Every structure is written in C-alpha cells, then in structure tokens.
C-alpha cells in the first residue's frame, strides 16, 4: 500500500478516511436494504395475513349455520397461505450469500485499501450450504484484514476434496491479539453450527484463518 510520493502522514490520513467512509457507506447501504425488504414484506405479508385473519373470522362465524360456505372460506385461506409461502421461498433463495459474489466484494475492499488480493481454487463448485457459510467467513476475515492487519497482501485459498472443503484467508500483516470480539465469535458459532472447524493462527508474519466444512455439493 505505498502510493508513490505520498508522505506517511498522508497515508495514515487516507486510511482513516477510508474506514470512516466505509462505515458511513455501510450504514447507508444497510438502511437502504432494510427499507427495501421492509416494503416488500410489508406488502406481501400485510396483504396475506390480513386476508387470512378476516376470512378465518368469517369462516368461524359461518361454521354453525352454513358449513358449505365456511368450507370454501377456509380453502381460500389455505390457498392464500400456500401462495405466500411460494413467494417467501423465492425471496429467501435470493437472499442466500454466495461465495463468488462475496469474493468480488472482498476484492473491491482490498483494492480500495491498497492490499493485493489473490484467489486460488474454484469458489463456484461448492454446494449452496457450504458456500453460504464460507461466504460469511470470508466476509468477516477479509474485513479484519482490512481493518486490523496492516498487510500488503491477502490470499484466499479454496481447496475441495470429496465431501469437504477448506477455505483459508491469509495475510502478511503484523498479527494481533486476536482476543475474539463479536466478529470472530459469530463466525465460530456459525461454523460450528454447520458442522465445520475453525482455526486461527496469528503472529508477527501475519494471520491465517482456516475453515474446514463438510460439503455434499448439494444445492
């Protein structure tokens, strides 16, 4: 990260600004995303659940005097719920993190911070389950490299073997205390929940985060 002709103070200033502006951009983006999803859901659910509660009430009233109509109301309710479920399923699939997408974002973050970024291995051959967990791991590990490492380069290695996959994020920075904050703790929890293992090495030659996960290759 040595911009030609930039004084040391200028470099430090640049790094400070990068971090502040990233925080700001992050907040804005999170807000925008929340709002978009909020609107979608509000529309979808508001509509379905309101319909369900009204029709179910109506059916309950009809049950004693007009069972045929009551039955029809209840079938409508079941149908509405099933249709909403189809939409929710589609929305959720669109939301799952993917490793290739996350690699692009990590490449951008590193390039912005002047950290060289290398990838070895094929991110696109993983099953969606393992892919989603590894995407989260990579996001947190690379964010830490950018924020804490002072590294000049960051290397991602993806190694697949039958039935399992290993991801490592290695930097050549200064290492750190690695006293686990919410970032590393959350990561550890998610990896464990998915049946994987997490290994962290940090020293004066840099930091390495290695995750091994079972991978059935299933979607």
């Amino acid at each position, binding site marked *: 990260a040595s911009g030609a002709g930039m004084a040391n103070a200028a470099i430090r200033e640049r790094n400070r600004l990068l971090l502040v502006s990233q925080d700001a951009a992050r907040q804005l983006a999170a807000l925008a995303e929340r709002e978009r999803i909020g609107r979608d859901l509000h529309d979808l659910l508001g509509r379905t659940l309101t319909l369900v509660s009204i029709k179910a009430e109506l059916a309950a009233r009809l049950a004693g005097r007009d069972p045929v109509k009551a039955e029809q109301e209840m079938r409508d309710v*079941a149908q509405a*719920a*099933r249709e909403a*479920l189809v939409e929710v*399923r589609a929305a*959720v699939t669109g939301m*799952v993190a993917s490793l290739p997408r996350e690699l692009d974002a990590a490449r951008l973050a590193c390039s912005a911070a002047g950290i060289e970024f290398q990838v070895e291995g*094929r991110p*696109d*051959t*993983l*099953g*969606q*389950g393992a*892919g*989603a967990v590894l995407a989260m791991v990579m996001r947190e590990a690379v964010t830490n490299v950018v924020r804490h490492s002072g590294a000049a380069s960051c290397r991602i290695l993806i190694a*697949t073997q039958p039935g399992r996959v290993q991801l490592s994020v290695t930097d050549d920075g200064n290492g750190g205390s690695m006293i686990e904050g919410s970032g590393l703790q959350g990561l550890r929890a998610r990896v464990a929940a998915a049946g994987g293992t997490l290994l962290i090495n940090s020293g004066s030659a840099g930091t390495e985060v290695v995750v091994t996960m079972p991978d*059935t*290759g*299933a*979607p």
Partner: protein
Amino acid sequence: MIRVVVAEDQSLVLAALSALIALDGDIEVVAQTRDGAAALDAVRRLSPDLLLSDIEMPGMTGLEVADIIQAERLKTRVVIVTTFGRAGYLKRAMAAGVRGYLLKDAPPEMLTQALRQVAAGGKAIAPELAASMWDAGDDPLTDR
C-alpha cells in the same frame, strides 16, 4: 390400517397435521411427538409402518432420526415434511433411506396419497423439492 408416528416441534402444527391425515379413516396416528428423541423412542416401541417427521426439531433432527432407523434396520419407513427445502437436506434424506420428502403445506390429498404410496413400498418426493436438487453445483457433466 396404516399406523403412523408424527414428529413436529410446533405443537399446533403437530395436532393439526395428525388430525388431518387421520380424517380419511385408513391412517391411524399412534403417537404424536415433539422432538427427535421422543420420535425415535415411539418408533422403537410401537414399530409403526411410517414415521412422518419434521426436520428441524430440538435435540435430534428428523434426518438424524432417519439415520438411526436405517442403521438399526427398523421396518418403519420415514417420510419427511419441511417448510423450506434447505441446502443439502434432500441429499442427506436420500442417504438416510428416507422414502418421502414433502412440503408441510402440500394439499392434504397429496400428503395422504404420499403416505399410502410409501406404506405400499413406493417413494414420494414433492416436485418443488426434487427440482431444487439440480439447481446448483450438481451438474453431472461438470467434472471437478
């Protein structure tokens, strides 16, 4: 009469699902259980024709119960019902010898039809879920 143990951790769903499949009269629910361990216990004790089970439950998942039923070579056949076809579940279910894999909100005729089919030695997989198996990363033509 087809004898079924039902396993589902949401008690309202458990009750409604059990009542629903028993309505036609040819299926009898012999036990309702709310977690994996209780389901396994009921299967061992009652030796039903079928276990109709949710996946995500406290303690042991429906897939883990299916693993054990297969390992112990019990005669009970397993039908899984799920809300979302999560990544990898279907393949795991197949590996555990599961015979039916359906959406919980499937129309009841489809559900009871699937139960009869599996009890008779067949298989039943919801088309929505079967398709998802081939969506990503599993193209037989791509050689890693």
